[in-house]
């Protein structure tokens, strides 16, 4: 996968393949921001990535703010959702920096665009758009 790039998915099965393709570039310490309207499939995309790592319990952290998953292969995943965060102080209050500083984990952040000031400069961004009911456009970008 070269960045920036786009992928179109026509089905859940294709989304799974795109997720696996993207996973192959990820390594511990990476931060991945997912933006896209409600219902475009941000959580679904992360679910497919974590399933490829052997994690079956990934779900939306909209209410929990952050979920933590551990895979058998020693990969730790932090899964954030900023949707319900009202102000940036709340993110400091839950220790966002310590999560982002963990070199042994991959961190996913849904709705990261709501608080760009806390995002590390070095990160991946994925923008998901609904093209038609079953069709999704994924735009991948990498900031170094």
């Amino acid at each position: 996968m070269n960045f920036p790039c786009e992928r179109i998915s026509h089905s859940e099965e294709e989304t799974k393949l795109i997720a696996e393709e993207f996973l192959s570039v990820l390594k511990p310490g990476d931060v991945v921001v997912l933006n896209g309207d409600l219902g475009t499939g941000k959580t679904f995309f992360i679910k497919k990535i974590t399933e490829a790592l052997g994690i079956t319990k990934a779900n939306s952290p909209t209410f929990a703010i952050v979920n933590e998953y551990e895979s058998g292969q020693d990969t730790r995943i932090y899964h954030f959702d900023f949707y319900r965060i009202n102000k940036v102080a709340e993110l400091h209050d839950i220790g966002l920096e310590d999560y982002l500083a963990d070199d042994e984990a991959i961190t996913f952040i849904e709705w990261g665009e709501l608080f760009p000031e806390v995002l590390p400069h070095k990160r991946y961004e994925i923008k998901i758009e609904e093209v038609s009911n079953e069709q999704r456009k994924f735009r991948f970008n990498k900031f170094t």
Partner: protein
Amino acid sequence: MNKENSDSTNLPDILPLLAIETSEKLCGVSFLFNETEFYSAKIYLPHSHSEKLFELIEALRDNANLKLNDIKSVAVSSGPGSFTGLRIGMAAAKGIAAGLKIPIIPVPTFEALAFQLSQVLPENQRFIIANKANRDEAYFAKFHVKNNNYIFEEQLKILPINKIFYEDGNLLFGNISNNPNKIISPEPEVIGFWALKFGNNNIVYDFDFLEPNYIKDFIVKEVKK
């Protein structure tokens, strides 16, 4: 910052003292009997503070032949530093202090480390302490040594990591580089020493609202300016 005149008149009231240092990866505790006699123990393992801190306190208490009831105060490293570490240290300090009805002495982490370094560095040596606040920024302060004590050259602040450089002759401590002086946080007994030497005006009896010094406080201050 004039600390040379501080005296130790209320020393007996706060000894023996339990000191806790958890601001970075080091998890350390110390029981101080006075300015020269102490027991210390430490663990250097990532993600260990929450599991190991109380074990460490208990093991050291038994080694030192103390009862927790003997303790007259708790000195705790109050940051800046890692969010999780500081919270765990502060929570432990509050739990113990509340149970024993004794005060807490919050100890500014960078000043404790500066104090520690000032005992070994030569007179007038300039040095920087910089520890990561997040991926792109670090907590930063600059000091020089005078009479085995530290003098601030630049007050504590947050700086982008790529804006921190040091001139020839300055030493850099902290975790922002791979520098060989891997001294990142103070030794637990130094938290206690600082409390004994400078903590007189810092003794907190009503600590319900005592919080560690964390990135949020810097940001709030910046907004207020």
